[in-house]
């Protein structure tokens, strides 16, 4: 007993001593001049190499180019979302951003409570009233929405066309009509990716089959690379050559499987080529960074206003990567075909579904 008491005493003494250490360059809470931006991440959190990191990059750009000071909060459970937003709003941030549709209710409520603060929600869900008319968000809340189905349509067409080839880059493949998809959580938002992808596949190859699987039914499904690898391996073994993932960091497992099987995967949200060079056919990119930067810039310019901002193929809000790194994987004939498909979608000649049939 005495030993334990002694131990507590020693530890407390060490603790008190350490309290007086102040390392060089320790930061204080940002206040005062300049733009203060607060961002609350989705539960997938930073480091998912796609969605949340996209928002982070946008904020980073704003720090560099606009001199904004940015504070990040990573919530733990459901009640932390509102708590995080409230923390930032109460500190007098100029703009508070919630990353993910799950923030919809919390942002709407906070925007009403803090009418002097600007708010923005990435993927914010917009509801419709009983007559089917869109209910606008509060005047200080911007909904940053993306037409994921359009980008998914294009990578779907690409996946189907590439699957027919017997040689891609410097590897040989058995042509196939089975096209793969790995989703994260089984929810309408991800079904939108699948619906666009499926429509893209079937548009260029009506007798192809899309093998679509989901990693799970909880938010965990967005951060389970082991499960992603398992699903992807089984798809590749069943003859699939190309898999598109919309699964957050679960997709890192899909890339692992592509590398192990010598097959191809399509990244999502951000350019994920570096995760498995040579095995990433392309990435369906969602300009979360550009949208976040744009919102911050508007606040600085004083042109920010609430409402719905939609980013699609037409304005480059969604798209796919075609650059020096993956040019060798995409034959010119296919690239030409994709460009004409893109024009047709932008012109509205090809309607792209947002829901699974």
């Amino acid at each position, binding site marked *: *007993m*005495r*030993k*334990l*008491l002694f*131990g*507590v005493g020693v*530890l*407390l003494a*060490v*603790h008190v001593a*350490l*309290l*007086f*250490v*102040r*390392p*060089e*360059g*320790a*930061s*204080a*809470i*940002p206040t005062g001049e300049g733009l203060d931006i607060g961002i609350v991440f989705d*539960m997938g959190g930073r480091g998912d190499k796609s969605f949340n990191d996209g928002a982070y990059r946008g904020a980073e750009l704003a720090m560099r180019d606009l001199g904004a000071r940015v*504070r*990040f*909060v*990573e*919530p*733990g*459970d*459901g*009640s*932390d979302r*509102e*708590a*995080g937003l*409230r*923390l930032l709003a109460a500190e007098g941030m100029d703009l508070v951003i919630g990353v993910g*549709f*799950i923030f*919809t*209710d919390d942002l709407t409520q906070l925007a009403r*409570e803090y009418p002097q603060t600007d708010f923005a929600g990435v993927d914010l*869900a*917009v*509801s*419709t009233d009983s007559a089917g008319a869109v209910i606008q968000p509060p005047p200080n809340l911007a909904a940053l929405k993306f037409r994921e189905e359009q980008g998914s349509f294009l990578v779907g067409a690409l996946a189907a066309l590439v699957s027919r080839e017997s040689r891609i880059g410097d590897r040989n493949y058995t042509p196939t009509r089975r096209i793969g998809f790995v989703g994260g959580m*089984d*929810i*309408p938002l991800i079904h939108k990716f699948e619906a666009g992808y499926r429509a893209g596949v079937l548009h260029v190859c009506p007798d192809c089959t899309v093998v679509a699987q989901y990693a799970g*039914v*909880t*938010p*965990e499904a967005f951060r389970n690379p082991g499960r992603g690898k398992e699903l992807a391996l089984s798809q590749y073994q069943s003859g699939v050559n190309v898999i598109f993932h919309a699964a957050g960091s679960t997709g890192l497992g899909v890339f692992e499987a592509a590398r192990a099987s010598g097959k191809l995967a399509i990244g999502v949200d951000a350019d994920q080529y570096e995760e498995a060079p040579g095995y990433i056919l392309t990435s369906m990119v969602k300009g979360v960074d550009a949208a976040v930067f744009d919102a911050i810039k508007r606040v600085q310019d004083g042109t920010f206003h609430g409402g719905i901002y939609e980013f699609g193929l037409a304005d480059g809000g969604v798209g796919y990567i075609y650059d020096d790194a993956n040019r060798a994987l995409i034959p010119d004939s296919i690239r030409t075909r994709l460009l004409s498909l893109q024009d047709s979608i932008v012109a509205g000649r090809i309607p792209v579904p947002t829901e699974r049939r």
Partner: protein
Amino acid sequence: MSSGSEAEVTAIGSPVGPSGGRRDRLAAALLPPLMALALAAVVGDLLILAFGEAPREVYRLLIEGTWGNAYGLGQVLYKATTLTCTGLAFAIAARAGLFNIGGESQIAAGGFAAGTVGFLLPAAMPALLAVPLLVLAAMAGGGVVGAVPGALKARFGANEVIVTIMLNFIVLALLNYAVSSHLHVPETLHTPEIAAGVIPRLADFSSTFRGSAANLSMLIVVAAAALLWWYLFRTRRGYELRAVGLQPDAAEYGGVRVGSVWTRAMIISGAVAGLGGINYVLGYKHYYEEGFATGSGFLGIAVALVGRNHPVGVMLAALLFATLSQGGLAVNALVPKQMVDVLQAVVILAMVTSVPEVQRVLRAGLRGVRS
């Protein structure tokens, strides 16, 4: 340590030794948690320094953001309410010698039951009738999920660890299907709002708690903890339950029907976990939302371990973990949230190694290494 070993057995919740004086007992109960906290504080200091920040600044923010103002305190109480339920759920099963790893799905089922029954009830129903009904629905929801592993264990000897873990997946998948395919409000992952009657928030009584999620569910949960204490230590059934937990064969020889005790313990355990669902569903958001309690079922295991499976200990441990969790948000600007996760782990490890049984095993292991 030799002089202390006798007093240590008298730690909270353990049988009281004949010679343990009042002061010794108090010291034995208080010193291990103090030790764990002090250790966590020092580890926290070192981590903060490793991130290049000043410990004093970070701890100041942590205290200010939790116990420093009414809002922070409300958030702590809110989180502690949920954790008390999942902690008590694990504790009562543990007292019967069972490891209930299913808190995660039991609390979800409880919240789902309350949320679904809630929006089905007519808005005209008086709140005094609706609220107790919904609380019962939450307990029933969790209780049903808890009953399955209990009954399987009693009837077929199925390992409750495996059954509860597997049930987590099954139940969460079913709830997800029900909500995302049928019951959800379009473009969201939650059910329609409850119209009939909800539990008031603290902010409804005092504007200093404005914005905080804290609500009167905490009173219901404290009452449930008191009731559990009475059941465990003052009733014959509670005595049977503890006897089965200590030595099932001896209990059976003494005339206890072990199987029905197991089933009963798991039903109570599930019901208490399910009760935790009301905190979010009836008290905070007034609807059931997918993943509203993600992680709290598992954190409840740690809460029960640190609280020594005693209702009072569980409530204190829940307050501690809630403080760390809310404090993690407050210091997020300076250090990553994971720092708080590390502190939680330090507290758990330090507490677990101060349990007499674990120490005995550790000492035996050390002797084995030496010889």
